[in-house]
């Protein structure tokens, strides 16, 4: 298990700098401030007759967003936090992971690492693990904020676990994308740029594809694409509320955030999954793909490099 040497080295290097502790402290302050700020905003904008603790569905009649927010303030607060944390992960994970291999190339240490005889997949796995652990450490700074939001009630244990699992899956995928780009990029800046581009595609690209598809009467065909979008999937986790919020949207776009709108998997009737399940499966597969591709990319003598198409993709590696 020599990949563990990379994890411990990476964490030793990262945690010995003052900057890490400054960032961690700032994150705690930011997320705690976010909860307090959001709560203040909710209280200020919602009629005071709505109970503060716990949740209750809005009464009959037409649904308004402010009414829903007032009724489910604990849930909205919690998922607003999760949404922001996902955004923070989308910023931090690629930045951390994109340095992992290209940074070593820039420092002139990557050849030394490769010449140890450590298998490329172990190097890549070690780099990914170190990035994931570090990003999770940063993400843990949001726990006090989540705890405060949790106290307002309305979020079930299953929703809590699902949110946590989705966040961890996103950390893994974003980090794998970062490591992959790092294995291709000559510099960390270029690698980070590629990684942010891919994550932007996951966020905005999938949304754009879905909206265009839905506007052209092909909503059902393009709905599975939404499973790639971590923010959309996160919105769909609190099913009862997301289905009510979806009523605000035009009819053809409602499945966008409606957690109860399960989907036939790419048109296969009978294979119906909640969006989060499809997201998790896709994220695991994509993470594995990016890991495998990174292993080929970092090793100039990898067997697959004998193939012309691989050399065309990754260069000669010499």
């Amino acid at each position, binding site marked *: 298990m020599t990949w563990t040497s990379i994890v411990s080295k990476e964490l*030793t290097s990262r945690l010995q700098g003052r900057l890490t502790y400054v960032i961690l402290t700032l994150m705690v302050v930011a997320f705690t401030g976010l909860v307090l700020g959001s709560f203040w905003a909710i209280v200020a904008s919602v009629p005071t007759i709505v109970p503060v603790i716990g949740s209750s569905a809005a009464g009959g009649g037409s649904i308004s967003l402010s009414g829903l927010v007032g009724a489910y303030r604990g849930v909205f607060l919690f998922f607003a936090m999760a949404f922001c944390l996902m955004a923070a992960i989308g910023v931090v994970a690629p930045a951390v992971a994109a340095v992992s291999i290209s940074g070593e190339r820039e420092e002139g240490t990557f050849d030394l690492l490769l010449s140890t005889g450590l298998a490329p997949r172990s190097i890549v796995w070690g780099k990914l693990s170190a990035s994931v652990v570090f990003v999770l450490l940063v993400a843990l700074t949001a726990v006090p904020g989540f705890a405060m939001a949790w106290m307002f009630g309305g979020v079930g244990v299953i929703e809590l676990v699902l949110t946590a699992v989705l966040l961890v899956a996103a950390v893994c995928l974003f980090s794998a994308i970062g490591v992959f780009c790092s294995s291709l990029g000559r510099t960390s800046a270029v690698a980070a740029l590629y990684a942010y581009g891919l994550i932007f595609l996951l966020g905005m690209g999938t949304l754009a594809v879905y909206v265009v598809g839905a506007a052209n009467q092909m909503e059902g065909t393009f709905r599975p694409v939404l499973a790639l979008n971590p923010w959309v999937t996160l919105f769909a986790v609190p099913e009862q509320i997301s289905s009510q919020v979806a009523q605000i949207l035009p009819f053809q776009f409602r499945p966008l955030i409606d957690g109860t709108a399960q989907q036939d998997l790419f048109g296969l009737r009978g294979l119906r999954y909640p969006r989060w399940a499809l997201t998790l499966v896709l994220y695991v597969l994509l993470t594995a793909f990016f890991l495998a591709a990174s292993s080929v990319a970092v*090793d*100039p003598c990898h067997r697959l490099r004998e193939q012309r198409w691989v050399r065309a993709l990754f260069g000669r590696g010499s």
Partner: protein
Amino acid sequence: MALIELEQLSVDQHGHKALDGVTLSVAEGASLGLVGPNGSGKSTLLRALAGLVRPAAGRVLVDGYDIRHDVTAVRRRVGYVPEQFGVYPRLTIAQYLDFFAQASGVSAWERKNTVDTMLRVVDLYDSRQKEAASLSRGSRRRLALARALLHNPPVLLLDDPLGGLDGRGRLELVEVLKEVRGMGITLLVATHLLADLAQICESVAVLRDGRLISLLPLTAALAGDGPARRRVQLEAVGEREQLAALLIQQPGVMDVNDQGLAISFVYEGDREGLALVLGQLVTAGARVSRFGPGPDGLDEISAALAEGVGRLSA
């Protein structure tokens, strides 16, 4: 038995052939110097042996393992010290070596011992708690050497190990390399200065434009048997200006340089011709007290080798 075998090795880099059909065999325990000018393919040859570049054609075998089929096994049998390398910031020397020992597969129970032994071999034991990034150039080279030896490889590849070091740094590293050679490790040392190899290697491979020009024992290269260019230094009692004027008239003599206490010149020709030059000086009345290789004489030979001036034979 050959520990390293290269058969018609070619490597393409940036659209040109960095190595072109190199065939070479190095016996177990041998020490071979690779000389040649910049861009001749010395570093690429070492990187190919370390499994860091993919051959475009030909075979690379290290200890029987083919780089195309089992590159990890090749890497485990090779210790590689590149010309330019970095150290991880914020890691101490001991942490740095411990990391590489672990990555190289040195077992947990023998890791501390191995690291301590290597630190003593390269004389860095007392500095082991210092940050690796704070080391001087010479100490960094010794640290790199220790790192390359951690997993006890049978082959050690050194790319310009003495480049950029001051006199003391060179002396210290040469002593360590002599010790390493005594351990029976097969050494390949790339340099553009033959002088660097004088105390480390037994034979020399000359590369130019990615091709192997010649392979000869170091003693033959240093003796300059056959026509060659070398720097010679002489000391004489009396008028040096007249002596310098006399020297410049001799066939094969060029670049006469009065250095104060001594006169140095470059001579291109064989040893017989050089003996005749000395005879001419003595006949002309010069009182020569010393006549021998100049301080940078070996560099002149290596430059001649690299430029293809003359021929050196065993």
